[in-house]
């Protein structure tokens, strides 16, 4: 699933803990994170997963933690994958408006959903649980690159930072640096019917 999320990669797995990296670019601003992601809960029946992610900036002192809850609601034409995220972000990237953060994460998820759908539709049939999988996978993707999750937040934050930077000059920015930002996000997207047949994929 990681390949579906632009900039995300999974580097390894130790038990149920994944390690990965996430690089997000908003215009000239680049935020790179590395961290871990862990499935706290994975209920295939209910297609629900709870994931915790933690990541640090690759160059810099910032970081992010996130808890992600994903669930899948089946519909006629596909499955609605709902991803709820609580993100806490530290560092330079941590200051900006929530609006920007949400906007950027929406775009990322939209890309993700598009990629996922493409990947699933191209893939061979699988069991119904895959739908669940998708759900799980989706989160995985989202969250999976744990860093990605954090990265999500981060990315958003990055943009946020940018905003802040641009919007206000250095003083205020500096003042705001280091204050953790708590953000809650709920993202929903529909994975087309074909998606339900998706395989586990590389995620």
């Amino acid at each position, binding site marked *: 699933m990681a390949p579906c999320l632009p900039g995300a990669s999974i580097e390894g797995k130790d038990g149920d803990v994944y390690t990965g990296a996430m690089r997000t670019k908003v215009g000239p601003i680049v935020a790179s994170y590395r961290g871990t992601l862990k499935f706290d809960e994975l209920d295939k029946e209910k297609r629900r997963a709870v994931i915790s992610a933690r990541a640090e900036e690759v160059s810099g002192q910032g970081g992010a933690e996130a808890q992600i809850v994903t669930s899948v609601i089946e519909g006629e034409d596909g499955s609605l994958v709902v991803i709820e995220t609580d993100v806490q972000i530290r560092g330079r990237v941590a200051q900006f408006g929530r609006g920007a953060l949400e906007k950027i994460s929406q775009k990322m998820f939209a890309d993700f959903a598009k990629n996922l759908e493409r990947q699933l539709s191209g893939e061979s049939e699988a069991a119904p649980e895959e739908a669940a999988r998708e759900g799980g996978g989706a989160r995985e993707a989202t969250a999976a690159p744990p860093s990605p999750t954090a990265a999500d937040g981060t990315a958003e934050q990055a943009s946020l930072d940018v905003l802040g930077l*641009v919007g*206000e000059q250095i003083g205020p920015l500096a003042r705001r640096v280091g204050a953790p930002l708590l953000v809650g996000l709920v993202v929903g997207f529909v994975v087309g019917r074909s998606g339900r047949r998706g395989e586990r994929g590389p995620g």
Partner: protein
Amino acid sequence: MKPAPFAYHRVHSVEAALERLHELGEEAKPIAGGQSLAPLMAFRLARPTALVDISRLAELAHLARVGDELRVGALTRHATVESGAAQCGEGFEVLSRSARFIGHGPIRRRGTFGGSLAHGDPSAEWCLLALALDAVVIARDRAGERAIDAGDFFTGYFSTALAPDELLVEVRFPRPRPHSSLKEFSRRRGDFALVGVAVALDLDRAGRCEDVRIAFGGVDDVPVRVAAAERLLEGEPAEADAFRAAAELCGAELGRGLGDEDGRLKRRLMVELSVEALGEASAGVPG
């Protein structure tokens, strides 16, 4: 507050700039006035591995009318536009009038028109005006030039349709728009606007609005037009009631996407600023 290490390349022709950008790839950035990119680098939010300094390219520093069209070279400083009402000519007064909203004096003397557009801040004055005045952005790469409508140019926060090896060389405003105005609100003087609005309209002989443009900055990840409000004003008398109705529609349309407190303030600003801007535009404020 020091940037991460980077390589610095000064170029003396557009061709050389394009070669450099091509060979250096995605991690290189062109720089001119440095009023947007340099602070981002100082905070290490942006870490380009190389800068291509295009500030010596005098060929890109023009500001001239060609018939109806106004051509603004990428390297034209904000201050040049501010004091250049005569060069801009009749019908483009809004550009000179709006320049004073950009940062402070030193920023306006260094920062460039093209730089502001290429940076793509969704609340930047030139970005807003480019959209409201139907500007066309001319981008060049090694293979040649292309024209990008302002409406297609901005793609997200600080993101544009420019490819990494493309250089914004000129911005063209297709025709005079004497009835246009930009209004904005910022908490401190010189800051980017919390909300900004740029409007343009024509008046027919009976004083009715035609070809209306209403563009907002600071309310989304790109500057945005409100087509519904533009349509609402089309053919309406240029009067306060019609302006208020269109402004309220803008607030309702764009306000939906904004959250809570911040959203309330921004909605209110959108409405009041656009009423003001439409009023000023219809009156055709003297330059």
